[in-house]
């Protein structure tokens, strides 16, 4: 992408709100096209309304309806007697599981969580509120519970052109362990998250989140590294993403098709993302 000062104003605004994420790129491309399409003889308020409408359409088609379509396909994969492992909190995965419960399927969920954000707790709360039996473990005990699991369902932050899955840090670990125990790994991803970027490791591109959140422990005591900013040799690195190789993923469910991970460039080539 071009340097930030030459990008349009709305890009800069978005970049200030939140660091540019891979899945934001498609929306920005879409909006740029819409802005260019607006006829110059429209009044400002009408033009603004049109833009707002196009943003709403993007959300409705690529996120909301795509989510529903993915849910329809993914719910078929949940069968009675399953123990499904999920990682942290994802709206899409929760939606799928709640829908499966609404269709009276009999299954359990294993929620794997990791620090520092511990969003898996919210997953657990929502699932148990719906009456789905849940277990909760930290990622350290992933190998211990993997024997009892029948399927693994993961959400992706982006799907790269070489088939690698960009997900919340820890996803690659779950993928690797599931593969070793021969459990199918189902990744659910809308097509707007497909990116032309190519990377094979998590260092090339990543985000850093707040390092101080790593200091919070369960007993709220001062940890030995509380004053890490004073130590020149100590740095806290709170990575947000990691990449999972396509060999570890059994299937990617998108709203247009169920594909193997290696078919990501096919979707990109066909311009499946509605502009």
């Amino acid at each position: 992408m071009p340097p930030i000062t030459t990008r349009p104003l709305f890009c800069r605004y978005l970049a200030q709100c939140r660091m540019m994420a891979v899945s934001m790129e498609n929306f920005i491309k879409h909006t740029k096209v819409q802005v260019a399409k607006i006829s110059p003889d429209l009044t400002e308020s009408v033009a603004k309304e049109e833009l707002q409408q196009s943003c709403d359409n993007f959300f409705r088609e690529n996120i909301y309806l795509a989510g529903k379509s993915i849910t329809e396909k993914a719910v078929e994969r949940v069968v009675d007697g399953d123990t499904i492992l999920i990682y942290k909190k994802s709206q899409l995965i929760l939606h799928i599981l709640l829908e499966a419960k609404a269709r009276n399927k009999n299954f359990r969920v294993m929620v794997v969580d990791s620090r520092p954000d511990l969003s898996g707790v919210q997953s657990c709360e929502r699932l148990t509120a719906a009456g789905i039996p849940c277990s909760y473990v930290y990622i350290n005990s992933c190998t211990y519970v993997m024997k009892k699991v029948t399927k693994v369902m993961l959400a992706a932050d982006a799907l790269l052109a070489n088939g690698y899955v960009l997900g919340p840090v820890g996803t690659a670990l779950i993928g690797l362990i599931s593969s070793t125990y021969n459990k199918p790994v189902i990744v659910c991803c809308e097509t707007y998250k497909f990116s032309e970027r190519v990377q094979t490791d998590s260092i090339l591109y990543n985000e850093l989140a707040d390092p101080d959140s790593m200091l919070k422990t369960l007993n709220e005591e001062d940890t030995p590294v509380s004053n890490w900013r004073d130590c020149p040799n100590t740095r806290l690195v709170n990575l947000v993403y990691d990449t999972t190789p396509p060999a570890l993923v059994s299937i990617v469910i998108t709203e247009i098709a169920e594909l193997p991970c290696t078919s990501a460039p096919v979707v990109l080539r066909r311009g499946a993302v509605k502009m």
Partner: protein
Amino acid sequence: YQRRVRVGMERYVEEFERKKNNNKDTPIAILAIQVLNDFVSKSDVGTLQQLLEQLKELSTQLKATAGTSNTSVVSGCDLFVRFITLSRGQNDPSSEDILECKGFDRVRKFLMDRGDTFLERLRKSRQKIAQLAYPFITDGVTVLTVNVSRVVLQLLVKAHQKSKKFKVLVTQSEEGPLMVKELNAQGIQATQILDASIGYVMERVSFVLVGAVGVVENGGLINKIGTYPVAVMARSLNKPFYVAVESFKFYRNYPLSQLDLPNDARYEDPEEKNHPEVDFTPPKYINKLFTDLGVLTPSAVSDELMKLYI
């Protein structure tokens, strides 16, 4: 109306049964498509929508009588319906556009022409595969194959006709002896081995070549039971594993495990559920697929299916 339609279809189902018994060599999917093509020419409906509905109904009935090869019947019939309703010929921009036909008789003629083209293409698919793939069989190789497959047979015969010297090992499975007999009749040196001895012979094998009942969306293989262990064994000893399959066997299903295959594909009698007839080989064990669309890797199968259906 529905009852009359179904009764009318019984005639076609009977014809399908008769064709099955008379033509053991032709792939069952081609016979099904011939029946569908016949149905299109003799049907008396007035709209395209009705015709498509009836074709769908007839496909389901044909599938029910097809036994465990029904995945190829399903995929073949699906492809047939898709192909004939494509609005313009793929390689022929001057051909008539279905949307410009006036009157349903013209539409019907259009569909029949497309159907005939499709059948002609399918009939040539085995020849195309043999033509594409015989260079993979070089002098002095030992080929391992599983059970009987007409595609593999045609491929091996072609290689033999091009004066390649090779040996074939056939696993006994259900109909291995038949394959051995056919190969020997063509002058190819073929030996039958027990399924249990694949571990013993694998070190002497150059590559494994099998046919298919169906190929699924991720490039995985559905074939007669006993194929999966051969694939695993080949992978562990680093022997290439090749599949020779016609493109109409590309089946729109995505199994993640052996149990994900539909019941009527696995068992001869889905009610009784005796021993399964087919097994599923995941794509990571397959090196290449020889198809009439070209020599593909398993990941290209999804690409081809998307081109056809999406």
